[in-house]
């Protein structure tokens, strides 16, 4: 059994708790508002579309939503130790992690890939090919981000901070300054997938598709495996 509906229900309600849901909605709503404004003021323009979908949607929105959904799928439960109710059950630990991952991926994609697609259509441009390319890249990135940030959630109480540092400092800042860093960036790997569809030079990755694919699979599978291991030996200690 790779999926447990009860675990999924609990996780989904934890991620989409009232406040969290509002934060999750903020960026997609912003993206769509900007898309409408741009379309009205500038009209359909491939250059602008690629800037907005690449620079804002894929580079900022997807990782931020990934951090919230990925760490939120498990971090708070471990933090306040309410996860004992989940763990004191004869449910295999990999099942728990895979279920939580499924929910985190679903939420990340729903709040990032879907709005990216919608924004792309609103922006018009190159036969909506760009919209599909970036939305696909966002969907691919959702999987890897969710897995990676879910793993961070099983490792540290400060997973959100580390997640933000990874997304904003490593990928966004260092990624734009240091060439080598780009090779180790979920965003670039996802772009490599989008590049295949995008055509026309507006979707560009610094990583070749085969390498990107391998790295995406390795990171997703590795992080998931590691998270399950963490859960197997999760420790509850008395108050210090």
């Amino acid at each position, binding site marked *: 059994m790779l999926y447990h*509906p009860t675990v999924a229900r609990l996780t989904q309600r934890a991620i989409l708790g009232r406040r969290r849901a509002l934060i999750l909605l903020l960026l997609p709503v912003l993206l769509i508002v900007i898309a409408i404004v741009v379309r009205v003021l500038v009209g359909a323009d491939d250059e602008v579309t690629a800037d907005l979908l690449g620079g804002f949607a894929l580079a900022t929105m997807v990782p931020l939503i990934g951090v919230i959904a990925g760490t939120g799928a498990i971090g708070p439960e471990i933090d306040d130790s309410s996860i004992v109710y989940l763990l004191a059950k004869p449910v295999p630990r990999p099942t728990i992690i895979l279920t939580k991952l499924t929910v985190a991926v679903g939420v990340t994609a729903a709040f990032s890939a879907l709005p990216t697609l919608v924004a792309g259509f609103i922006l018009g441009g190159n036969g909506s090919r760009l919209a599909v390319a970036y939305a696909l890249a966002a969907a691919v990135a959702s999987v890897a981000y969710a897995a990676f940030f879910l793993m961070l959630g099983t490792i540290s109480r400060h997973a959100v901070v580390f997640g933000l540092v990874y997304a904003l400092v490593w990928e966004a800042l260092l990624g734009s300054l240091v060439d080598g860093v780009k090779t180790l960036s979920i965003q670039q790997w996802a772009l490599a997938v989008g590049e295949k569809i995008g055509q026309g030079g507006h979707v560009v990755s610094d990583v070749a598709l085969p390498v990107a694919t391998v790295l995406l699979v390795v990171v997703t599978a590795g992080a998931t495996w590691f998270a399950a291991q963490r859960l197997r*030996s999760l420790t509850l200690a008395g108050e210090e």
Partner: protein
Amino acid sequence: MTTIRIDSVSRWFGNVVAVNDVTMAIGPGVTGLLGPNGAGKSTLINMMAGFLSPSTGAVTLDGVRIWRNEQVYKQIGLVPEREAMYDFLTGREFVLANAELHGLGADAARKALATVEMEYAQNRRISTYSKGMRQRVKMASALVHEPDVLLLDEPFNGMDPRQRMHLMDLLRQMGAAGRTVLFSSHILEEVEQLAAHIEVIVAGRHAASGDFRKIRRLMTDRPHHYAVRSSDDRALASALIADPSTAGLELDRRDGILHIQAVDFARFTELLPRVARDHGIRLYEVSPSDESLESVFSYLVAA
């Protein structure tokens, strides 16, 4: 018949030894794990519940290792010490989720909620519950699969007397039905009322084991300490030292206090005033210096 065995188990956190070479077996019936704050009760229970690995030694359920073995939860129900639950759920949703995770359904959840008398508030969010209500919902979540072993860490915390009585009855019934019930507490009276068998743990060590009569006796027979101020501490000391009920004497000249350790409580309380009178010594102050639970317990460890 299910037995949890703790075999030469120690657990340390960095330099802190929380549990120190403990060996005990918890069998069917109700067992009380008694010890003062910080004694290592939660550490032991967490190891029995598979949420902490022993640093050395083994913790087993009918011979099967508990750590990293999720199958044991078919037989174990746990009521943790911590408050946190899925507060955004209602009581009913929470207990139902626990039932489903055991492969059970709404019937099991309903039954467990009825057992703890929480049906009346089952549709309220847990975040609105009082401490006692939380405790009872935690209890329901642990009972939902009718486990052979029930582990409860400070289950009576925050309960009012009526709820406490009700939970005690419930645990008694489970014990009488042959289930293995272990609960921790730092209150002797609580443990006495409920537990057929008591395990005492102090400063990480297994201090005593037996029924409540034996534990009581150990506690009243222990040496009592007194701090005495008198008109002539020195003369009083030399008059007392001859008597077998006096086990130790220490004169603190600076503060003018005579510290006395008495082994035979009844005899000593009669001896002290008589000796003082016979020697014309006036007693200004006689105070038992360590009646705290800690000191009562630490005597047991030394014994």
